[in-house]
């Protein structure tokens, strides 16, 4: 079975919510919509206190080249545009809306019919995706329309759909594949048209046999789409690992997938593209998995952006008494949140509640150069070496150790028998090297 060659670890899969169909969360009474929901600059608000808004209405515009539009996920009145805590752990500018009813913008097609016919041109598709504020829903939140604009001199040959979902606990992509398969496949065709490619691969880890079977069967109707079963190994969902496994091509250090003719998009993004292009529906809701060993009702919820996570946790049966961390994302790469008031944003694929005894870090002891971290690094780096540069204040050395290739998957820290804070030190080194490079460019 296909897989990526170097490194990788096997955390316990814990796909507790894999069999739970997507439930639609009720619309909350207030939503807090952060202006920073994509990579790049925060968006500029277009509404003020007192303005009436409808579901799907544009309320903030992408400010710079790498930035995205934001649409209201509710109908009601704007209470204020003010600072509120968001997933960054800081108070940032948000649009806070008091909800009244659930009225949608008239241009959205709310009928449940499947629209298979793709009538837009490549340019119209990319423009529509930009208008709809679609960003990478795998968690990176890179504005999708920019990824589809292949730079001069490069050519896209393959579209790869990332349906791997290698993080433990997370199952939102899995459920979309089972419940919205046709829409997903049409979304893939739309992306293929936007990139002018004839071949698309959907990479799915082998722990989702039902999704593999379902999509393999359905994709027979759609020309050029092939489903690829992949060995279960973290981080198979990393785009470079995915390209290596499916096409056996290596993306060169410091370059993007387009260098080897590939564009990678997440499954949920492809579904959002279908909704935006075929139903004129901008991005204002997403499926979020709420899970954890002690969680009463692990579930997959279709949530309006801006809903506070306290509502989702209640829906999943409340916060268990032994909870140590509430993590946005998965336990490997996710970030522990510091408030229950934090709202769901476009990049929040799941909430994992970790019990205190698992969340407490291992006691740190000395590095014995066992090199386990090197053997598990999927990018072929030397984690202990890079971490050491940060510890000794010599971060400049990390540049020659290719620290910028690090995808921050956490396999090294996961494996380290000494409990060293490897990824933390690597992040410090990466940050400082990035600063150095920017200074050099000036």
């Amino acid at each position, binding site marked *: 079975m296909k897989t990526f060659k170097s490194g990788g670890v096997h955390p316990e899969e814990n796909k507790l919510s894999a069999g739970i169909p997507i439930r639609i969360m009720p619309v909350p009474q207030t939503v807090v919509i952060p202006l920073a929901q994509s990579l790049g600059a925060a968006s500029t608000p277009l509404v003020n206190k007192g303005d009436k808004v409808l579901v799907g209405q544009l309320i903030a515009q992408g400010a710079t080249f790498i930035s995205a539009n934001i649409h209201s996920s509710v109908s009601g009145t704007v209470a204020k545009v003010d600072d509120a805590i968001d997933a960054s752990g800081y*108070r940032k500018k948000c649009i806070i809306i008091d909800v009244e009813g659930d009225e949608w913008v008239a241009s959205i097609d709310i009928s449940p019919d499947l629209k298979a016919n793709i009538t837009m041109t490549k340019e119209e598709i990319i423009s529509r995706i930009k208008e709809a504020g679609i960003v990478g829903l795998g968690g990176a939140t890179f504005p999708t329309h920019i990824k589809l604009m292949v730079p001069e001199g490069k050519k896209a040959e393959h579209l790869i759909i990332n349906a791997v979902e290698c993080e433990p606990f997370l199952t939102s992509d899995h459920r979309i594949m089972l419940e919205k398969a046709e829409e997903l496949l049409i979304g893939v065709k739309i992306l293929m048209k936007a990139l002018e490619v004839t071949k698309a691969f959907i990479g799915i880890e082998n722990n989702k046999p039902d999704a593999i079977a379902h999509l393999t069967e359905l994709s027979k109707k759609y020309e050029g789409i092939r489903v690829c079963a992949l060995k279960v190994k973290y981080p198979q969902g990393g785009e470079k690992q995915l390209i290596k496994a499916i096409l056996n091509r290596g993306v060169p250090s410091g370059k993007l997938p387009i260098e080897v003719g590939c564009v990678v998009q997440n499954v949920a993004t492809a579904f959002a593209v279908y909704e935006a292009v075929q139903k004129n529906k901008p991005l204002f809701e997403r499926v979020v998995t709420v899970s954890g060993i002690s969680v009463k009702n692990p579930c997959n919820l279709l949530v309006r952006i801006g809903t506070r996570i306290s509502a989702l946790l209640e829906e999943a049966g409340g916060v268990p008494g032994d909870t140590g961390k509430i993590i946005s994302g998965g336990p490997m790469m996710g970030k522990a949140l510091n408030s229950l008031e934090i709202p769901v944003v476009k990049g929040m694929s799941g909430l994992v509640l970790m019990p205190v005894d698992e969340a407490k870090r291992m006691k740190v002891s000395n590095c014995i150069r066992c090199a386990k971290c090197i053997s598990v690094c999927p990018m072929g780096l030397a984690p202990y070496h890079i971490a050491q540069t940060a510890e000794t204040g010599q971060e400049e050395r990390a540049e020659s150790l290719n620290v910028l290739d690090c995808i921050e998957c956490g396999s090294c820290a996961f494996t380290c028998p000494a409990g060293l804070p490897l990824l933390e030190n690597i992040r410090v080194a990466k940050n400082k090297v990035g600063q150095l490079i920017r200074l050099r460019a000036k």
Partner: protein
Amino acid sequence: MILYFVAQKFKVIEDPRIDEVAALLPGVNCGGCGFAGCRNMAENIVGKESTEGFFCPPGGNETMKTVAAFFGQVVEEKEPLIAVLRCNGTKSHAVAKTEYDGLNSCFFIHNLYSGSNGCAFGCLGGGDCVDSCKFDAMYMDKETGLPVILQDKCVACGACVKTCPRKIIELRLKGLNDNRVFVCCINTEKGGVAKKNCEVACIGCGRCVKVCESNAITLENNLAYIDFEKCTLSRKCVKVCPTNAIWEVNFPEEKIESPLKQWQEDNFDKL
């Protein structure tokens, strides 16, 4: 033989004065002058043939006088500066609302979230500044969770100022008799928000601005700032601050006027 020729061919001709000036400098290579080490500063001084615009914080006025004299020049004395931590968010003033369990690096925590007490501007207590001090002038107070800057050892080289990711440390005038007054907070959030996280935060009320006789205090973005060049150390601001955010350092204890009052104070519990 070969070594001799190579040594001659690649010999670097240098102005011999550079070595002489470098010998007059402390040799700590702290970077406080803005150059890459003492020798680099010496190179630049010799290049300009003047000490104008140069200052060595650890060496101070003594060193600059000696170096200027080397060129037959006289240099104006500068008032000494000292590093000041403008945050009083101790473990008791700014109670922890979340527990942080990870790498103890201020740089890392700052990029991760606002910190365990919730103030996005406050000291994180990770000690990056203490690690950066080459003069043993700082240590971490375990009880308060804040770094302490030792007045007698700090040379105001600026290393801690650069290291602090939140720019909490400022170089200010050491002051006449080592007396100085400053607002011990850099939080620019609205008063209510700031106070929620820390009980000694500056809430931007402006009382200090009104009472200052030398117009040394400005209020911007909900935060008061005392200009140390203008401050006359009257300390009227310290008395009116409702959150005790303004600090007066090294002033003598206030004298009680009447001996009777003093006796009453001393024997309060017996009365």
